[in-house]
């Protein structure tokens, strides 16, 4: 299998998921609704002047990643679960290896994460008066952390797709696996909001991304194929 052929197959899976989403809008609608609801409640509960300025950085960063984590947990598991529920998993397994299917679905979920972040970050800024001194550093943190979050979530979706109580199982397994990433993401977000690109948390995030990619690649066949 040539590299360009593999990329075309990954893109085919991603484009198929995007076309399905464009027709039904289930995942996008549910995650954006969740994010909007959470943002509104938080803004009313805390408000722009609810905390001293020096405390706000930590609070806003933690709030952002709580929102991103739960919004993602609402929409990303659908990647593989939907294939099992509708019975299309057999046709997909017969057509493409698990690694390529996982890569295609991860790519689509990454686009979904970008859409969530595009709503959540400006939303926090407007509703809570959060100012980001370095938008470029913030974009980098979101891109790197979002990648790790998406890879792990999509892989776990493949793992739990055939289990009972899959939604509960997904969140229960997801949480301990994502805690190291989320803690580093919060630290890197605080720094980016203050105008810096924090080295140590970014190194942890990038190392996590690398480890998650390797693990997902090596275990994709075991998780998805028979």
């Amino acid at each position, binding site marked *: 299998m040539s590299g360009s052929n593999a990329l075309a197959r990954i893109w085919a899976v991603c484009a198929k998921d995007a076309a399905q989403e464009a*027709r039904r809008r289930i995942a996008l609608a549910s995650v954006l609704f969740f994010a909007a609801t959470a943002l509104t409640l938080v803004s009313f509960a805390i408000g722009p002047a609810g905390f001293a300025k020096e405390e706000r950085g930590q609070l806003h960063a933690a709030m952002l990643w709580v929102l991103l984590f739960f919004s993602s947990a609402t929409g990303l598991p659908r990647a593989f679960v939907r294939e099992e529920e509708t019975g299309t998993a057999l046709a997909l397994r017969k057509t493409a290896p698990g690694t390529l299917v996982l890569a295609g679905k991860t790519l689509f979920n990454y686009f979904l994460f970008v859409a969530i972040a595009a709503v959540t970050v400006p939303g926090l800024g407007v509703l809570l008066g959060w100012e980001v001194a370095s938008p470029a550093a913030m974009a980098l943190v979101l891109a790197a952390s979002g990648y790790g979050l998406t890879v792990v979530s999509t892989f776990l979706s493949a793992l739990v797709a055939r289990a009972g109580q899959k939604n509960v199982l997904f969140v229960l397994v997801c949480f301990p696996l994502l805690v190291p990433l989320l803690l580093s993401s919060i630290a890197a977000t605080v720094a980016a909001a203050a105008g810096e690109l924090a080295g140590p948390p970014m190194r942890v995030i990038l190392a996590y991304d690398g480890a998650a990619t390797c693990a997902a690649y090596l275990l994709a066949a075991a998780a998805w194929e028979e």
Partner: protein
Amino acid sequence: MLATTLEARELSKSFSGPPLFSGLSFLAGAGLVAVAGRNGSGKTTLLKILARLLRPENGSVRVAAGDRELLGEERRRAVGWAGPDLAFYEDFTARENLRFFRRAAGLPAAEAEIDARLARVGLAAVGGRRVGAFSTGMKQRLRLAFALLMDPPVLLLDEPTAGLDDEGREILAAVVAERRAAGPLLLASNDVRDFVAPDQTIRLGR
């Protein structure tokens, strides 16, 4: 072209109960292989194991072109399968479904190519219709198109006549007549009329 063979060695499978089959071995070359047996005898399970959609508890399956065993992607493409629980994306048209599966398999998916495959199973006129609006028989024809999608030398058809009208049965009979000379064609059915002069019979559940 080298002759393709499908060989099962000592296959066993059970689902929390007595084994559906145990120590099942056979070698299939070009020709029609009838997989017969009563309901629940393991016909669907056997075909899924041969298609690598299910793991056997014991034993192995070997697909070979001449003396060379086919592995990985080559093997995936060499074995076509269609069964009752094969489902399609209901929001997509039949044409979109076949196009996607061709692309996901890394094969060309030009319009003419897809249209020819739909025409082969008598679905050319409804290729632009959503699969969700298809009747049982139309879905069955689409399953046949899926099994043939990668032009596999080995074909596994599980209850392919279920829900088909007379025209659908004629299309299937033409495919079977053509493909049985090209490689192993395993056809599982409860209806003995589906087996036209089989070259080999595997009887399960005795």
